[in-house]
């Protein structure tokens, strides 16, 4: 794989948007041509080289390209938007919409991500080594289809309304989740290995949520089905003992499934 290293040289006072920094756009371009790629600084279009050093070697097809953003990208939005192949590695934090609308390839963020990571993602893999903000793998505002394919892993904690309107794919959170994970989700799998505050699966109509930590509170619109041991979800074995619920019956015809680890969660069983 050929590596292209992009190093932030000055920080902008307003956020940068760099949807064009992805293997799909860089493929077939020389390093000098990549320096000319357009990005947004607030409401102005500027050249990539105004804010970044660019070095390394490009390739003919996106699948052969690995882009390394070597520095603080906490003021940079839309990294890897719509990418279909190749790899992006960010050596620090990122701002909003990392992996937005991603269709293939892989993104690794070594720091934290702000909100809307993997919004409307359709394929590929997004891995965040730190924590992420709200709305991981969510829909665009007003749409009823969130992430529909691909795989997101968050090693830290997440904020509100992750997996909102989840329609497919899989999200794994190693840390804790704040209110309303899986709200309105209709398909797909959400696994939370840490704790959750409340409203897990609110208004969900389908799909599966597994909570391995402690859930502070649960919703009265679900039905309790009993205890299950060593479950299987979409062909994957998940060991443990779980309370099983179905709902959310606030929604007509809902058939979502929520598994909650028995350990520490006696209070949510009626």
């Amino acid at each position, binding site marked *: 794989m050929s590596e292209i290293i992009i190093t932030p040289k000055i920080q902008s006072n307003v956020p940068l948007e760099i949807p064009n920094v992805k293997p799909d756009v860089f493929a077939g371009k020389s390093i000098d041509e990549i320096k000319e790629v357009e990005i947004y600084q607030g409401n102005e279009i500027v050249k990539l080289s105004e804010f970044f050093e660019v070095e390394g070697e490009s390739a003919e097809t996106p699948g052969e390209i690995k882009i390394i953003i070597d520095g603080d990208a906490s003021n940079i939005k839309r990294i890897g938007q719509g990418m279909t192949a190749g790899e992006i590695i960010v050596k620090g934090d990122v701002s909003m919409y990392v992996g937005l609308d991603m269709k293939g390839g892989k993104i690794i963020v070594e720091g934290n991500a702000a909100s809307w990571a993997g919004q409307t993602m359709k394929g590929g893999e997004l891995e965040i080594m730190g924590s992420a903000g709200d709305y991981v793998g969510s829909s665009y505002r007003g749409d009823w289809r969130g992430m529909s394919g691909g795989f997101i892993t968050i090693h830290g904690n997440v904020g509100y309304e992750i997996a909102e309107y989840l329609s497919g794919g899989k999200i794994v959170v190693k840390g804790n989740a704040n209110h309303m994970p899986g709200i309105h989700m209709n398909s797909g799998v959400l696994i939370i290995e840490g704790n959750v505050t409340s409203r897990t699966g609110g208004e969900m109509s389908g799909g599966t949520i597994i909570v391995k930590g402690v859930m502070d509170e649960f919703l009265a619109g679900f039905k309790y089905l009993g205890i299950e041991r060593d479950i299987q979800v979409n062909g994957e074995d998940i060991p443990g003992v779980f309370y099983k619920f179905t709902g959310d019956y606030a929604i007509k015809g809902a058939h979502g499934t929520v598994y909650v680890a028995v350990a520490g969660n006696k209070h949510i069983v*009626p």
Partner: protein
Amino acid sequence: MELVNNVICPFCGTLCDDIICKVENEEIVGTYNACRIGHSKFVHAEGAMRYTKPLLRKNGEFVEISYDEAIEKAAQILVDAKRPVMYGWSCTDCASQEVGMELAEEVRAVIDNTASVCHGPSLLAVHDTGYPVCTLGEVKNRADVVVYWGCNPFHAHPRHIARHSYARGFFRERGRPDRTMIVVDPRNSDTAKLADIHLQLEYNKDYELVDAMRSALKGHDILYDEVAGIPREQIIGAVEALKKAQFGILFFGMGITHSLGKHRNIDTAIMMTQELNQFAKWTLIPMRGHYNVNGFNQVCTWESGYPFCVDFATGEPRYNPGETGTNDLLQNKEADAMMVIASDPGAHFPQRALQTMIEIPLISIEPHRTPTTELADLIIPPAIVGMEAEGTAYRMDGVPLRMKKVVESDLLTDNQILTKILERAQELEASK
């Protein structure tokens, strides 16, 4: 003294249209029919200081400048900025808001109104679920079950209850005795004291309660004995009361739009209202605060496709409250210039947002001295719409009403000021 009849009150979203103003020497000296808060706007409450000339801050002090100089300065600030935000809009007329939209597009700004900090969550819910709305006239003539959820009109919209819920209507000849009033509020508010049924839920538990109610509405059991501090039987009783209505109306306010979950509370409440239509006629109306906050959302939607928080940075409208809300832009230190019109964020925004407002160039188009003008670098005083200028406003139920000009003023209107800034901005953008 002269009496001017059928004046519309430019204060709250009830937009009362039966005010009589007493006018002496081109000044409103008294009113009939207005409530106390409406009245104090008409007669300029005690202590209100009115600006008569544009002011520019120079070395920390305000100096008087001409309108032309002020407009030049405002246009320059907006054109030079890379992430300008134009906020407010809720106390001016729709035609001015329309010019504002054009200006935002011209200078590629983010444009947002006070819904951002009040009924924004309702707007987010509306595009997720729909909007089963009716007019206040229908409420008055038809409603037999009136729900006030998370709002206290007794104090915030003082004539609302009397004009629409207590009033005699065509099918409700006796007025109040013909209606059941249900209040859902954690507090025993003055509105709750008037209710037939008061569901005193725990704080931040609106979503849990609606979830249980919706599930009961579909004939399912409620999982727990008590939800949001309310026993199962009482929840089922309340659901039965809603089902038995002939014409039900749900009024809702900040108590549910800004409790935990925000737009998700409204989303599920709207869905419940829709689902209740299997049993009875059910509708809802948000209790809008500023008199024309709704108007901006209408104008913004018909101009850009989105109701508020519209970002023109790339030339085409984008929308994402949470990123493009004024508070988001200020608190994340994204904005590099701000124009405030027809609202007072200086009094209402959190410290972290005010900090950015202090750091960046701030234009305030505002008739009175307010906490916002204290932070401003440039103040442009307009005539007050609904008193010194006419214009259209949208009532909380979406009915547009034409506001009167009651007295004369030497000041430019919001519309004139914005049009001049727009013309100058167009020239500056063209010469860039």
